[in-house]
């Protein structure tokens, strides 16, 4: 394997050319998306079928340059690609050099794709994406509205290359930034560039990444660590997952650059256990990068050493907090500790540590290559660059999007996301996960950047955008988040452990129709306590989803508490089962099916449900042959 090691910048360039040519030489290149989303929709079966068909199909080769890794390019090349983002339409298949993008491909479609597209360079129209509003067919990615509003920096090559192949990564320029840093920049120059770019941490806080690096570099202690937070625990967020799965080398390159900048020799990637594919691809990427001399000892012959390890999380949301994460890597309970000392002073193994998240590191290579000024040309002055979001919920197009900071939520939801599913009415968009809050209709035209969003009382967070329509009960949503933060509280500090328990109790009471007059006041008092006294950032922000819904939708709370009604008809215990007297034939089936004898009646007189006895189990609805029972 030593023969494959890159020993200089020149060798990397040569390698890059070789791989580029190899790929160019592929007569037809079929990319089957193999992100978690598409895999779940069955893309691996599509890939298998495509590979099988490819073996039996020959395509004319126009030229055959030297081949780097010995495949026969007389056949079409079938690759797995990283996440294309439009998971909802998966499995996605892209065919180069034609550039056509097929959606919802099944193994049965593969034969037709081969006959029509691979052999005859024609399009299978039924597999094209159709614009949901105009009905127009979209031939390639750039025609699809979902992609139109996006700016892809971090996800630039995610989906266009095979994430399991370092050759493909090298062919698109990965590790060029590292070479530039190692051979043409001093560590302090790298830090300065990152500082100048004003790159801010994408994990939630928005702390200027370069400052962390600078502080670590200035520590007297010389053993230093680079840690990547891939513990994307926010429910409703999968941006980091897609990056780790779809373009692992880019993030690894960012980490190596950080290591060079601060003089670290070891690094750790902490990945959620729920992301097995990310773990697999990162493990492979590290192995490959090490084989190519891009990681490990004497990187590219520069004399710089850096070793990378992967640690899997074990199902604890709190490990997304920096000190809890490092404790977990150390083999301890993932409980946040008091600061100071800060992570930059005493982080992992009590050594100075740079801790950034996946997306932050993934931004670094492009900043080094194109410079701070280029980076600042994207986004807003104080929040430069792009942000990836997981756009989900009641929106037409769900998936992974990357947009410049400063874009409005409206653009994301209505242009990229195509508006609300089923033409329902937009109600709110939840941003920042359990540490964030809701934005309402009136707030949709505010720019999305770290500081503007903060002024609205929410945070950008890691990037979950869950769109909610009129059928969503905001009190239930608040209960949902409180249940989550309470369950995931580490239990260390009193306000978070006991406070979230009590807030949850109140919310559970409210959605069950047992809310009391003073409950809103109690919720606010508890929230105030937790926000100001909890030990860690996650604790301090735990009440935000409640506060945000209380502020934006007070009338929904009022309805639950005073009128014992759920305006969105979501809260089970507030539902009323009613018999429509006009449809009731007095057959008594419902009464016999009722487990609590809440239904009574006489022949020829419509039956009635005693609401005080009804437990809302729904048995009567199933029992009624005349569909006379409805939920109000």
């Amino acid at each position, binding site marked *: 394997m030593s023969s494959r090691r890159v020993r200089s910048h020149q060798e990397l360039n040569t390698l890059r050319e070789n791989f580029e040519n190899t790929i160019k030489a592929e007569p037809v290149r079929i990319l089957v998306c193999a992100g978690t989303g598409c895999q779940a929709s069955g893309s691996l079966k599509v890939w298998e079928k495509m590979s099988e068909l490819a073996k039996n199909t020959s395509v004319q080769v126009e030229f055959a340059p030297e081949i780097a890794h010995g495949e026969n390019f007389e056949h079409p090349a079938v690759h797995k690609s990283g996440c294309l983002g439009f998971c909802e339409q998966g499995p996605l298949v892209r065919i180069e050099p034609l550039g056509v993008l097929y959606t919802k491909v099944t193994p049965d479609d593969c034969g037709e794709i081969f006959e029509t597209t691979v052999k005859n360079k024609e399009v299978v129209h039924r597999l094209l994406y159709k614009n949901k509003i105009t009905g127009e067919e979209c031939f390639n990615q750039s025609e699809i509205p979902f992609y139109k509003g996006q700016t892809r920096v971090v996800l630039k090559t995610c989906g266009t290359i095979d994430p399991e192949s370092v050759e493909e990564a090298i062919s698109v320029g990965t590790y060029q930034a590292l070479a530039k840093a190692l051979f043409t920049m001093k560590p302090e120059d790298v830090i300065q560039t990152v500082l100048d770019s004003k790159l801010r941490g994408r994990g939630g806080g928005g702390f200027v990444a370069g400052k962390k690096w600078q502080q670590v570099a200035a520590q007297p202690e010389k053993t230093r660590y680079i840690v990547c937070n891939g513990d994307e625990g926010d429910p409703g967020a999968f941006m980091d997952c897609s990056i780790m799965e779809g373009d692992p080398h880019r993030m690894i390159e960012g980490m190596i650059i950080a290591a060079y900048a601060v003089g670290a020799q070891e690094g750790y990637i902490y990945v959620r256990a729920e992301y097995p594919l990310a773990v697999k691809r990162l493990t492979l990427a590290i192995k490959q990068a090490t084989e190519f001399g891009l990681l490990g000892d004497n990187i590219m012959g520069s004399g710089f050493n850096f070793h990378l390890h992967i640690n899997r999380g074990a199902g*604890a949301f*709190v490990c997304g907090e920096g000190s809890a994460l490092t404790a977990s890597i150390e083999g301890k*309970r993932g409980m946040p*500790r*008091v*600061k*100071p000392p800060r992570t930059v002073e005493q982080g992992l193994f009590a050594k100075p540590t740079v801790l950034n998240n996946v997306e932050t590191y993934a931004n670094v290579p492009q900043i080094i290559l194109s410079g701070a000024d280029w980076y600042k040309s994207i986004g807003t002055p104080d929040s430069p660059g792009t942000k990836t979001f997981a756009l989900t919920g009641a929106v037409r197009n769900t998936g992974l999007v990357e947009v410049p900071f400063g874009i409005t939520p409206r653009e994301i939801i209505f242009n990229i996301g195509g508006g609300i599913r089923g033409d329902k009415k937009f109600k709110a968009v939840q941003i920042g996960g359990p540490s964030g809050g809701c934005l309402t209709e009136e707030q949709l035209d505010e720019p999305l950047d770290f500081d503007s969003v903060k002024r609205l009382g929410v945070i950008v967070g890691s990037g979950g955008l869950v769109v909610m329509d009129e059928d969503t009960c905001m009190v239930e949503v608040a209960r949902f988040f409180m249940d989550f933060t*309470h*369950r*995931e*509280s*580490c*239990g*260390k*500090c*009193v*306000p978070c*452990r*006991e*406070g979230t*328990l*009590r807030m949850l*109790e109140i919310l559970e009471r409210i959605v069950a129709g047992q809310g009391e007059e003073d409950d809103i006041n*109690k919720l606010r*008092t*508890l929230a105030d*306590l937790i926000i*100001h*006294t*909890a*030990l860690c950032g996650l604790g301090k922000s735990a009440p935000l989803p409640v506060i945000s819904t209380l502020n934006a939708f007070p009338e929904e709370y009022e309805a639950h508490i005073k009128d014992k009604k759920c305006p969105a008809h979501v809260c089970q215990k507030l539902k009323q089962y009613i018999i429509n007297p006009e449809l009731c034939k007095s057959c008594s089936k419902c009464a016999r099916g009722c487990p609590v004898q809440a239904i009574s009646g006489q022949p020829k007189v419509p039956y009635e449900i005693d609401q005080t006895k009804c437990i809302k189990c729904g048995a009567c609805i199933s029992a009624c042959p005349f569909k006379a029972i409805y939920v109000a």
Partner: protein
Amino acid sequence: MGTMKIDGYPVEFTDEPNILSVIRKAGIDLPTLCYHSELSIYGACRLCNVEDEKGRMFASCSERPRDGMSIKTSTPRLVRYRRMLIELMLASHHRDCTTCVKNGDCELQNLAHRLGVNSVPWGYRQPKHKKDFSSPSIVRDPDKCILCGDCVRVCDDIQGINAIDFANRGTEAMVIPAFNKSIADTDCVNCGQCRVVCPTGAISINTNIRPVWEALADPNIKVFAQVAPAVRVAAGQAFGGPKGENVMGKIVAALHRLGFDEVYDTTFGADMTILEESKEFLEVYKKGGPFPLLTSCCPAWVKFCENRWPEFVPNISTSYSPIQMLGSIAREYYADPAHNEGKKILSVGIMPCTAKKAEILREDLKRDGKQNIDYVLTTEEMITMIKRAGIDFNELESEAADMPFGMGSGGGVIFGNSGGVMEAALRTLCEGSERLEIEKLRQSGVRGPGALREFVFNYKGNEIKAAVVSGLAEANALLQRIHNGESFYHFVEVMACRRGCIMGGGQPAHGGYKTKEARKHGLYESDVNTQIKKSNENPTALAIYDTLIKGREHELLHSHKH
């Protein structure tokens, strides 16, 4: 170094590690439930939150003082938050306060009162866990636990045992042994330090008050007590007396009032221990090993050594600990019908220690299958009994301990301090102008502040390398170094509790720095006031070698574990 403003008043600080220490130095008793200056900072209770000029709020236990800083400690907002935090803790706490063992001495209860908590607006979580009575020393009641983690840190950081730790998370979190086993099934050495730091009734002393009290009331039982050195400098404070004052005379009087027929002084036993142990040391020294000789007085340490370092068990002195010495000799004494008056005899030790409750049960310390001591009561239990009987402690006239086991040397009394056993033992080796030698020994390093003190003693022109260590984590490190050949000593004194028995697991809790220092000085002061400095000059101790013991040293004064 610098000056900061606390509630408007300038306060200078030097090397205080955190703002909380500066606040306390300024005379403000900021409430905390998870802060102990000797333990690592945990930051869980959030009670010590303070506000700076900008209204920023932070925990003062974990923030460093900075010059020019200005903070407020009791704004209405802070007081409100503190009250709410206590309310939240109380809501999940088993609130049987009026019948709780900790009633009146509970830090949570005190804070609730101090902060004006007069109702708990949250639902009550019913108690759901069993109490653990498996240990002879402590009782665990998880429903009283507020998860401050003090016990976990003292057990792990200071003692290196880690018998209990947090388990589960969130509101399910508990402090328990692995798999919620009984504490008796763990490596617990019964030191009771967890109980000392526990602010509530979650860990308490396994009390033996009742059987003792019943015996006291029984005319057919002759009950005698022996009082350990450290008890006398800790009890007075509980009755409003000055910290660290030696109140042995009043203790003797109070115990007589409670009905103890005789009250002896464990200092006598300590002298016996020294007599035997120094003989043993000289033998080992002359034989050239095995080194180091390790002291045997501390049962928590002995158990620790057996659990963790079986290779060093043979190095532990076979001499009985002071309580066993006196217990064993008194047994012989009361075997004589002239002394037992035809009654049953009950032997009670009043100890600063919870581990002694376990020590008396050890098989290798039994003679003819019978314990040398029937019950151990801790200082806390003794105080409880005196209070329960309504005895006005402060008004008592001092009484002398009863003879023949009521007299001890200065060497015997300092046993309660870390370094005291070593100092007493080495005193017996002092020759020449004795006062001068003893003074020289005192200055040698055997006394001092560190958890580990190493020094050299000159004996007849030879160097004796000695070490004194307290706290089992520190002891563990020392043994590791000896094991690795990195350190060498002839003689090592180990006490499980930091600073020795004065801070034992059975002593009144809430001992701050001043209390610790006062207790230490109290014992040293008692030594100064004693005419006889050396154990081998205690005439009553020497006398029994010709009477009660008569050549039976091995049988009556040594353990038979090896």
